[in-house]
């Protein structure tokens, strides 16, 4: 199944999600608001997206963009599920109940971005020590030990 077929299929099954779907760089992207995230995700799971491939976040300035990449084995197609959480109150729903694969990946996002996932059973740091201060993948993170490399280019 290619992207346009996926869009048609999605629009047929979930007309409410249809306007949120777009195609960027050849990948299907479903941008939702974060309070609808869980709903959209469970809709996608019912549609046949049985794998949560990747979960990550991107610092977009005012907001953090939480990105999930879902894959469907039956349809052989992938889709991005994105939502923006505000920087001052980074909180969204966990997709752990839908895909247990989110267990560690959301922990990593919490570790690196400080985004709190509600409904996640084990919201602790994963890669960094528990007493670490700050969330390093935020663009404004600074640390005494960080070395600013020569700004050549």
């Amino acid at each position: 199944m290619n992207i346009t077929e996926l869009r048609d299929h999605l629009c047929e099954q979930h007309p409410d999600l249809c306007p949120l779907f777009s195609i960027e760089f050849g990948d299907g992207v479903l941008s939702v608001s974060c309070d609808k995230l869980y709903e959209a995700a469970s809709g996608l799971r019912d549609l046949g997206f049985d794998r949560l491939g990747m979960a990550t976040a991107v610092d977009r300035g005012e907001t953090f963009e939480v990105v999930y990449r879902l894959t469907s084995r039956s349809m052989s197609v992938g889709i991005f599920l994105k939502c923006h959480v505000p920087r001052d109150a980074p909180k969204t729903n966990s997709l752990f109940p839908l895909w247990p694969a989110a267990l560690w990946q959301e922990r990593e996002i919490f570790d690196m971005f400080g985004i709190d996932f509600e409904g996640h059973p084990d919201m602790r740091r994963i890669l960094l020590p528990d007493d670490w201060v700050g969330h390093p993948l935020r663009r404004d993170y600074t640390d005494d030990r960080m070395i600013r490399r020569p700004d050549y280019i």
Partner: protein
Amino acid sequence: MTLEVESRKETLAEDGLPVEELVVNVGPSHPSTHGVCRVIVHLDGEIVTRAEPVIGYLHRGIEKMCENRTYLQVVPLTDRLDYVGSMYANWAYCRAVERLAGIRVPERAEYLRVIVCEMQRIASHMMSLGSAAADTGAATMFIYAFDERETIVELFEDLCGARLTYNYVRPGGVSFDIPEGWTDRLLEFCRTHRVALREMDKLWFGNVIARGRMKGIGVLAADDAVAWGASGPVARGSGVNWDLRKHDPYSVYPRFDFDIPTGSAGDVYDRARVRLYECYESCRIIEQAVAQMPGGPIKAEGLQRLIAPRPGDAYDHIESARGSLGVYIVSEGGPRPHRVKFRSPAFCNLALLPLIAEGHMLSDLVVCLGSLDPVFGEVDR
């Protein structure tokens, strides 16, 4: 399984005496953790009641480092992700960059990439099989597997000058063309490797003790494998027929005829044997690729040294030896990526350890861990 954090718990035995649960700290420096992983193991006698992996000991902040580097400077960093299979991270990263920057790769380069990655698959599986054998004390099997790996590593050295961190796949192509006589040596290796594989199959997978150690251990149901995001031999060992080379074909893979080995029991044995059979398939792919390989350039012409793609994000994934390795790059313009995320298969597979190790003995814990084949450069990034 339970997920809440528990400290050592004290319970009362039947006769009223306090009994303390034995907590063993396997790692972070331990022969069988394949790197620096720490597993907090709660033991009831020898039975593992709970195994909790603690990772991050090899966390070098590679994703953070990428933010401060140009696209080309990230390539050597990807070598250090999965140091057993550097080619994969190279390739996945380069694919994402190429997609983002709209670079078209010459056909010969694609073939070279396929060849080196299939060689890398053999090398990585040999490492995995060997060290999984060493986990159970079969040091000789370990050496035999490493003999095979050594041949590949030598071929890699002749190809690109490095034995471990190749930095071979670059955005737009590969760094070197094959030297003279190299393909002959490669084909000769494929021939001898099959013989060695059959021998290993008998020595290791046919052995009654090895089967006793692997059969029925660490069983992962197919549904769990999918839901927990397992990929690669871990998922295929459970019977999940999922291989990106077939199901989301990339590069020139559709031109090759190969099979996907899958297990049925989902135990350690099937996972390991899937790896063994994949080596046969890799040999087949290499032979076909060498026969089909066209001439021509190995690098895209007119490639900017300073790659500065347009704003946007791109995700690409390939089937590495450990599963689907994805790279997600967000560009906001300019010569440096805004964010690079490596979706490492080892990280996702390792999350399964508590699931599969529970209820087995301490000796099986290391076998389960070895069967997931984690490489901690990739887990911790």
